[in-house]
Every structure is written in structure tokens, then in C-alpha cells.
């Protein structure tokens, strides 16, 4: 047998049959046609944009947006720029993605474990949940939950829970906690209030309460920052607690290695992180004010509020993605040989310990890569916020800004860049985590 064909030397054959020549020719053709296609597209786009009188470039970002961004977690006025609107959209996308991933992971792990339960009824219930929700489009689920939430009563007839939590067809409200002393209502805050409720309504309110200084406390506080002066104690004590816990865990591990004695590490760490900051805040005498939502006129003022659009989106995204997470978790646990469980028991571990120290670390190796793509999917699916009017990146820069300025190319490029960036960050983080837990082979 001759090896000439693989090295590209042909003995007497035409160069037409030389794989190397053919490969170069094929690549030239492919690259050539792609370049030609791009030239065609760019040429046409330039001609079309000139005809429509649209100047390309990103200068429009610093022009007034001329639309309000509301219904998310950061309100932007129409006098602010497109860039500000974009930032608000970015924040909204970020919030829904992060909380969606957290909720989907929690619910997914619970459902995945329940589906493996020995209890027939429990595992069947989990199976029904998984099979139903994963086979229905997520867009439909978002619309469904939005349709259900906006059928709830109007703000005036809100469903109340302990006079603290209110649910109505606009938002879900709960108490808001303020740390530190809050200064009196400044001019800027007054302006913020005016923006929040409209000038006419604000003037009426001031008139009704007899002067600016008498405006209901809840209203005034609604625009105050959560962290006022003197609230530095909270983050500082939290950092101290975390550092302390890290040191404690190291010490506990060393102790266990030396003496074999185990401490309830988890409970001590969790307790320290929760209790130490609270204790510090209480002992230092930092003011802690809890503000409850209050019904004024037709709407609620004050308190922490979550828009219904966000609730519908978040709920649908997390319950939908959780079904996939559940299947991944189930597959991961099943992938660990039952001999491992038996081996743990033979070593005298309790079933919880066996799960935590033996089964789960091994299952995670199978679970993490597909879990990453579920996080990516959830982040990308959050763009469906558009259908319920939650102002995310697609709703602001990719939607209204695009339609107002006509800068289609720039807006879509920015929107896509945001998601590519999110995808990159999530994959990088999960790859790092995956490497950390991966099997160390010798």
C-alpha cells in the first residue's frame, strides 16, 4: 500500500486529484462566496440607509429617549437618554436571569430528587409536573401566568396577607427594610416623587396633607435609599462574618483530620453569617425602619414592590427551566453506581452524609455541563419579557429605541452583544466550576 495519497504526493496523477489542491480550492470558493455575500449585504445596507437618511453610528445613544421605562426595577424618564434606557433594560434582564437561575436550580433539584423517591405517589406527582411543563412552550406559559396574574383584583381590593403583603393585578408588595438614618426629603427626592406619581397627583397630595412637610411618611420614604447614613455597619459586619466562617471552616477541617471529631460546620457557618450582622446592627444602635406598603388613592405607595410582569416572567421561566434541571439532576444521580452508596454505608456514613460526601460530588460532574446550557437557555428565554411588557434589553434598546430611531443595525448589534456577553460569562463561570469539581486523574 502506498502512503502517497495521504501526504498529497501523487505519482503520475493529475494535480486535479491532489487532496491538498482540492482542499485549498474548496476553501477559496467558500471564503470567496462568504466575502461576496457580505460585500453584497453591506453594499445594499449602505445604499438603503443613505436613501432613508439614517446616519449610522452610536451617537443616538446620547439623545433623549422620549419614552418612559416603567414596570421594571429601575424607572427611566423620557428626558433621559437612550443609554439610560438601555442600562435599565440591562439591569432588568440581569435581575430576571439571576433570580430565574436560582429558582430553577432549587425547584429543579427538589423535583429531580422527588422523582427518584421510593414513594410511588410522590415520584408520580413530580413526573406529572416535569412532563407537563416541559412539553408546553415557555412563551405560552409566560402569557398564561401573566393572564392569571392580571385577573387578580385591582389595587383597591388587593389580597392582603398579615397586612404586610399585598397582591393585586399590578404588583406584589411587601415590607421594605431601611438601615441607618434617612435625611429629610430633599429637592431631588421631591422631584423623584413628582416623577413617580405625576405632578398633578403630587400637588393634590401636598394640598391634601397641608404642605410638603406633612406628606405621608410612607410616601416620603418610598423614594429614600435603603441604606442611609450609618448603615455601613451592615456590609462591614457581613464581611467580617464571612471571613470568620472561612477561617473557622479551615480550622474545623484541620481538627477533623487530626482528631476525627466533627463539628456541625454548616449550622455554625449559616448561623454566623445570618446572626452576626443582625447582632452588630442591633448593638450599634443603627436605626432599622420597616416600612409597609400603604394604599393611597388608587395605588400603593411605599414598601418593596415587584411588578406583575416580572412575576409572570420569572415564575414561568423558572418553573419551565426547572423541569429540564430536574431531568438533568435525575440523570446525574442515576449515573452514580449504586455500589457507591453501598460503599458509603459500609464505611459507616449516614444516608445524608453519603449523599453529600459521596454521591453528589460524583453526580455533579455529570450534572454541571448540561446545567450550564440550561442557564444559558433561561437567560436567552428571558428576552420573551417583551410579550408581557417587562422592559428588558430587547424591550428597550431592541424594541422602542429601534422603532423610534430607525437605527436597526446598531440596536440589534447591541442587543445581540449583550446576550453573547451573558452567554460568555455564564459559560466561563460554569467551566471554572466544572474544572474545580472535575475528576482529578493521575
Amino acid at each position: 500500500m502506498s502512503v502517497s495519497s495521504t501526504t498529497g504526493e501523487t505519482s503520475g496523477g493529475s494535480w486535479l486529484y491532489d487532496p491538498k489542491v482540492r482542499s485549498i480550492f474548496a476553501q477559496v470558493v467558500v471564503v470567496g462566496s462568504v466575502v461576496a455575500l457580505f460585500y453584497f449585504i453591506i453594499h445594499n445596507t449602505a445604499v438603503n440607509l443613505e436613501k432613508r437618511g439614517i446616519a449610522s453610528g452610536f451617537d443616538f445613544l446620547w439623545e433623549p429617549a422620549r419614552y418612559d421605562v416603567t414596570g421594571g426595577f429601575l424607572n427611566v424618564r423620557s428626558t433621559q437618554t437612550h443609554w439610560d434606557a438601555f442600562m435599565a433594560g440591562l439591569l432588568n434582564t440581569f435581575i430576571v436571569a439571576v433570580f430565574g437561575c436560582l429558582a430553577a436550580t432549587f425547584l429543579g433539584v427538589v423535583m429531580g430528587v422527588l422523582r427518584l423517591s421510593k414513594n410511588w405517589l410522590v415520584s408520580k406527582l413530580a413526573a406529572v409536573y416535569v412532563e407537563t411543563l416541559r412539553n408546553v412552550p415557555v412563551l405560552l406559559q409566560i402569557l398564561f401566568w401573566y393572564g392569571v396574574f392580571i385577573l387578580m383584583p385591582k389595587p383597591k381590593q388587593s389580597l392582603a396577607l398579615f397586612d404586610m403583603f399585598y397582591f393585586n393585578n399590578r404588583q406584589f408588595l411587601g415590607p421594605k427594610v431601611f438601615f441607618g438614618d434617612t435625611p429629610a426629603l430633599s429637592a431631588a427626592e421631591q422631584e423623584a416623587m413628582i416623577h413617580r406619581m405625576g405632578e398633578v397627583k403630587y400637588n393634590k397630595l401636598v394640598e391634601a396633607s397641608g404642605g410638603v412637610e406633612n406628606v405621608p411618611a410612607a410616601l416620603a420614604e418610598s423614594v429614600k435609599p435603603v441604606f442611609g447614613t450609618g448603615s455601613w455597619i451592615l456590609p462591614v459586619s457581613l464581611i467580617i462574618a464571612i471571613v470568620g466562617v472561612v477561617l473557622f471552616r479551615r480550622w474545623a477541617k484541620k481538627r477533623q483530620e487530626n482528631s476525627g471529631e466533627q463539628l456541625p460546620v454548616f449550622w455554625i457557618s449559616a448561623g454566623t453569617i445570618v446572626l452576626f450582622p443582625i447582632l452588630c446592627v442591633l448593638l450599634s444602635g443603627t436605626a432599622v425602619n420597616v416600612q409597609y406598603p400603604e394604599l393611597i388613592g388608587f395605588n400603593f405607595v411605599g414598601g418593596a414592590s415587584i411588578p406583575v410582569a416580572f412575576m409572570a416572567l420569572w415564575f414561568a421561566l423558572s418553573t419551565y427551566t426547572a423541569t429540564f434541571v430536574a431531568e438533568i439532576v435525575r440523570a446525574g444521580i442515576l449515573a452514580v453506581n449504586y455500589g457507591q452508596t453501598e460503599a458509603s454505608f459500609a464505611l459507616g456514613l449516614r444516608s445524608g452524609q453519603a449523599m453529600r460526601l459521596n454521591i453528589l460530588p460524583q453526580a455533579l460532574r455529570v450534572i454541571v455541563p448540561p446545567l450550564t446550557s440550561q442557564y444559558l437557555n433561561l437567560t436567552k428565554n428571558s428576552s420573551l419579557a417583551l410579550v408581557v411588557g417587562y422592559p428588558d434589553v430587547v424591550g428597550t434598546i431592541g424594541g422602542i429605541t429601534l422603532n423610534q430611531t430607525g437605527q436597526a443595525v446598531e440596536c440589534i448589534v447591541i442587543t445581540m452583544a449583550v446576550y453573547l456577553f451573558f452567554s460568555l460569562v455564564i459559560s466561563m463561570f460554569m467551566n471554572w466550576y466544572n474544572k474545580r469539581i472535575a475528576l482529578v486523574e493521575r
Partner: protein
Amino acid sequence: MSDTLRPEDQLGGGLPERAPPPSTVGIQGWMRENLFSGPINSIGTIVAIGIIVWLLPGILEWAIFDATFVGVDANGDGSITRKDCLVENAAGLMTLEGACWVLVYVRWEQLIYGFYGSDGSIWRPTIAFVGLLLAIAPLLFDKVPFRRALLWFAFAFPFIAVWLLGGGEWKLSSVLVFYGLIVAILPLLFDKMPGREILLWVTKIYPLFIAFLLFDAILDTLLGFSIWNTLLGPLAVWEFSPLPALAEVSTHKWGGLMLTIVIGMVGIVLSLPIGVVLALGRRSTMPAVRLLCVIFIEFVRGVPLITLLFMASNMLPLFFPEGIELDKLVRALVVVVAFSAAYMAEVVRGGLQAIPKGQYEAADAMALTYWKSMYLIILPQALKIVIPGIVNSFIGLFKDTTLVLIIGLFDILGMAKAAVTHANWIGLAREAYVFVGVVYFIFCFSMSRYSIWLEEKLNTGHKR
């Protein structure tokens, strides 16, 4: 009981076999084993029963017992609306007690066909749907009566369906491109068919012809000169119907479940071959090809489908010279196919990587060309491995078709959304969306069950 003694009975002196304890057999035993085997297990059972008792009666009452199903003009105001579902409650107010399925009953035609029926030609999509079932059956199952004939029909079906649903008259170039494809693919699928040699020539010429037409179109837009038009003269603009003439139904009238199935089917049929090509490209030894494929796949997978659809509806018109208007449906189809092809490529790549290197070397040793070794040796094995992944991709694609409502196409969800915003049906979002959800569930669930069945069927020879 038989009278023959078993060996152990003979040895043991013939003590009669005793019945097992009642707590380990029968319903009681099963419950003990599966529901109440320990304290935690028992708590789980009680909680589960609690959830069922809490949810199920309410759901059943809403969906069935208190629901209104048939559209009768109950209040006699001359039209059937949500008002006909209202029931007087204890406080004397008219409210909706249960589900008002009348919405689905009244809007049935639009939910299924969109606005197709406005021409009175609903029989066309109906026949197309029956044809689809006939075409799919031999592809899904081995034991179907008249399987050979149906296979031929399945092959011709896409071309029949386009004519049946779209109708209208076509230019010669479109006819050649579209119906040329059927002739070009034919000899590749059937090894022993009459006249295969001649048809193989068509297969070879076809890509060149497409390349020529594309080149010609670019030439036309940049220089205003077209070889094709000059050569053929009036023939180039002559429009005719290749099959018996049917009235044209514009795609903006397509909608409902029919549109969902059209987008889903086109996506499924096209995304697999394109995905395979992309996957092969990504594993190619040619650096330029590999790089292009990687960029395409990673870009498409990194952005949401919605932004690609926006790109199609906002940017695509900019990409073409003025005067060329791409159909909205075609734009959506291009995006859906590209999107699912990128995902498909990654699934197929997984299969390709799972094939041992020896198989590639064996194919080379047989002196097969690259395409032949892929087509005959590698792909049949690789695709078989990743069938579950492929079907999962199909399910994802089918669910993703709902997104076309964002660029203004009215698929079944779009129709439902439009219905609940109508004054006649306000507040009936749950009914409409539950109906659409059930439709999607039926499709997706049966696809996933089929995949499991197929996996088991193909899992031969490796069983231990």
C-alpha cells in the same frame, strides 16, 4: 394448584406451602412497600395526597363540571360571546363560574387555519394535513400497509403541500429550483430505480444551476444585467402553475395550528441536513471552513431566537436592494431553520465524536471519497447514536415556533392571544392558553414518547 411435587417438597418431607403474610402481597403489600415504608415516606404520601386533594377538585370543577362547552346563544343577544357563559352567583352578580370553552368552539376555525378560510378553501389545508399523516406514517413505523407506495408519497409530499397550500403561478426559475430539487434528491435516496444514471446528472448539475442563479441575481442588482433574463427573454417572466392551477392564498392569511405545523415541519425537514453539513464543517480539516462553521454555530447559539427574528424583520429588508421584498413567512422560516440547524449541528457533532477513529480509517482504506465515507459509513452510525438528541431538538424547535407571533405572524398561540384581547372574550386568557397548551403537549409528548420507543427499538446488539 398442580399435583406434581417440586424437588424441594420431596426433599423436605412435603410440608404444604403457606400463603405469604397478607401485609406483603396484594394492594396492602404494595401500599406498604411504595407509600408507607417509613415515617418520611408516609409523610411524603400524606403531603402528596394533600396536594392532590387541594388542587384536583378545583381544576376539575373549573375545567369540566362548571364549564360551558357548546356555544349556545344562552342570553339571546344574537351573538355567542363570553356573556353566554356567565352564571348568576350567590350575590346575584353575573360571573364566570367555570371555564368558558365556548371561546375555543367559536374561534375553532381561526385557531386551526388562521384566516385561510376567508377564501372558502379550508379543504386545502385539511387535505394537506391528512397527506402529512399519510406521509409521516411510513417514516415513523416499519409495519405500515402499502409502506413502499407511501414512502414515494412521503418523498413527493413537501412539493405537493407547497402547491396545495400556496397555489398560484410561478416563474420558470422558481419552478426549476423547487421542483428540480425533487429530481436531484431522488437518485440519492433510491439505489435501484430506473433511469438513475440520467437523474444523477441532474443531481450534479443542480448545485451549479443554483450557484448560477445566485450569481445572476447579484449581477442583476449590482449591474442591472441578468444573463438568465437575457437568454430566455419573455420566458423568464412567464408565470405558470406546474401542477393543476389553484387560486393563490397569500401567506399572510396562513395562521393557527396550520402555520405552526408548516413552520415546525419545514424546520424539522431542513434543519437536520443543514445541521449535519455544519457539524461536518466544524470537524473539517480545512481551517477556513471550520472557522466559518464555528462562528456561525456559536453566534446563533449565543443569542436568543427573538433577536434573530428581529434581525429578520428589521435588518433583512436593508440587506437587499430596494424592490425585493421577502415574504414575512419566508423570513421567519429562514431564521427558524438557521437557528435549529445550529443546535442540530452540536447534537450531530456529539455523535460524530462518538464514532471510533477506526471507522474513519476503515472508510479511507476502502478508498471512499469524503462524502461517500460520511454518507455510507460515519453518518448512519453517528445519527443513530444521537437520535434522542435530535428528537429533543425537534421538540425544542416545535415549541420555539411560538416565537413567530412576536414578528406579527399568527400561529396558534398568536390566534389565541388575539382572541383573548377581543372585547367578546376578555378575561378568558386561561381558557385560550390552556387549549393551546394541550395542543402543544399532545405534539411534544408524543414526539418524546416516540423517541424513547425508537431508542429501544434501535438498541439492538448492544444489550447485555
